[in-house]
């Protein structure tokens, strides 16, 4: 369960989130919608611990544990995952090697035995085929030479392997064609359970046809201005964000 209370954040002296509060119980999917530059991606970046984001006040808890006090790698092992809008390219680090380190880092943090190379390959292959990710792509550098769609699939692959308690999908639908959107959505839906929760950040309601939200929130000027059911996304489609 994610619980954000009165979160206020500055970036380079400019306020981007103000008294932002949100609670997502386990088993629920929430959508966060809003126009450009209102603080949607800021929320994702603050939660992962990006250094330029200054938390002025508030708290963020996953299953009762305040993650703002944790190092970024500890937040991951506390159960947080963010599928980034534009993940970085890391030349020279093969994607499969990167996944191996991600998985075994989590094992170490949990005090559990590391996976063997064979176990990791088996896990990766089983999940990557589900997302249509080729072996050739796994051998390339992390996100190097990937198309926009491949980058999004690669993010979802990481999410499925790491099995987080709470995941943010930061505009995962942007740049995806309909088929890719279905593949990515199916991946997300396959992970849904009563032990985890999701926040889908998006501009457009289309993705919400494939990943059904329980609640939709509209954000403007750094705080939530309206909350409703899935019908709120359809309202946005008709009227835009102007009236909020």
């Amino acid at each position, binding site marked *: 369960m994610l619980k954000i209370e009165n979160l206020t954040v500055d970036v380079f002296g400019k306020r981007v989130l103000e008294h932002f509060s949100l609670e997502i119980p386990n088993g629920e999917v929430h959508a966060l919608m809003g126009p450009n530059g209102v603080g949607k991606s800021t929320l994702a970046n603050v939660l*992962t*611990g990006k250094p330029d984001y200054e938390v002025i006040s508030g708290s963020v808890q996953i299953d009762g544990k305040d993650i703002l006090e944790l190092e*970024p790698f500890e937040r991951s092992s506390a159960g947080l995952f963010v599928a980034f809008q534009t993940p970085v390219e890391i030349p020279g680090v093969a994607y499969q090697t990167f996944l191996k*380190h991600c998985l075994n*880092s989590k094992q170490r*943090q949990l005090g559990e035995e590391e996976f063997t190379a064979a176990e990791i390959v088996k896990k990766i292959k089983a999940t990557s085929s589900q997302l249509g990710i080729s072996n050739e792509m796994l051998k390339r*550098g992390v996100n190097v030479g990937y198309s926009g769609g491949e980058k999004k699939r690669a993010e979802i692959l990481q999410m499925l392997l790491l099995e987080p308690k709470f995941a943010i999908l930061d505009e995962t639908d942007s740049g995806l064609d309909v088929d890719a959107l279905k593949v990515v959505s199916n991946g997300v839906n396959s992970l849904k359970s009563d032990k985890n929760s999701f926040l889908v950040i998006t501009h457009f309601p289309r993705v919400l046809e494939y990943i059904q939200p329980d609640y939709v929130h509209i954000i403007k000027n750094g705080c939530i201005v309206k909350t409703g059911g899935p019908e709120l996304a359809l309202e946005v489609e008709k009227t835009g964000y102007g009236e909020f």
Partner: protein
Amino acid sequence: MTHYAFEPSSKNKFWDMHLNLGIPMRGNTFNESWRRYSKYIDSNLFRPWSPGGRIINDYKGYDIYFVDGNLRHLSSKFDADISYQMTDDINEINFPDNLLDSYPMGVLSLSGLRSELEIDVKSNSNHELHIKLDDKEFASSSFIHINVGENSKINIVWHLDSLESSFSLPFIVMNLEKNAKASNSFLYTVDSSSSNFPTVFYNLKDGASVYSHNSVNSSGYFRKDMFSYIDGSGCNFADESISLFGDGFGEIINHIEHSKPESKSIQNVRTLAYGGGVGSWQGMAKVYENCENTDAEQNHKGLILSPDAKIHMKPQLEILTDDVVCGHGASLGRLDDESIQYMMSRGIKKELAKKMLVEAFINASFSEVNLSELIEVSISDNINKVLNLIEE
């Protein structure tokens, strides 16, 4: 014994540089120059060679030949008829026949101040060899001359990681005849109280190829000079270096000269500096007149791992032929914070993320060369040793 001509022409300015070091390199042959130099040295410094020649079998599956004592001249033909021959006033010592046939891969463990080792690799042969200079006396002012015969192939791993003495000067000269191939893997380690100046010369005839890999870890003063003279057509020369400089000062100087058309060279250099370390690289590719279709490339990348570290780079091209492909590139940077942040967001600790990025920096850009297993394993070992030194 065949002596391979190593005749610098007047246009080979790098020999003049060598003269500045006090070593008379001009002469009819390289070997004769050295002999003259040897005579200049006080003969009292030479002691009779104690043959030793014992063989033990616990060095990674290789047999070890200890060449024990101070040698003025040692010649071993890679042939069925092996003889380690002393020159002039020192007795000739013959090893058993077929020694290297029985032990085709071996370790030469060398010692002796101002020694000279000459290895002739006969034509159409194939050898792998470890050369271990683990005695600081041998490293000082000693000279290793390797002649690789036509169509021969030799892979050598040089163990230079225990050279702790100051002002060590192991000169290594490798002459490659037509279509000869050589792969060398060097590992240098220099501690903070030491200085080291290894020098390597290559001379390539038609169709010869060299792959040279250097891993350097130095916190003292280190300078490596490499002079390569491509004296044939259809040659391929590749030098790849990874240098990690700690609180000391390190210099890598690569000088390649093309004197015949249709040959290719690449200098692929990666320099890392940490602490107060200063690294310096000077690359030169010189292409003489009438060297059409030469392809000479220099590629240097530097990675600064701490605020006080510095790296200097100086790629240079001197081209006297119109129809050539030559290029140079040099870049310098730090570890990418966004990449570290991304990796941490996936549960990877900062220290491991840094190490992975350093490894990526080293691995991402080397050319793909088909190497023997011996050389590949050695390079991998060397890189791991360097990586393990990265501060966490």
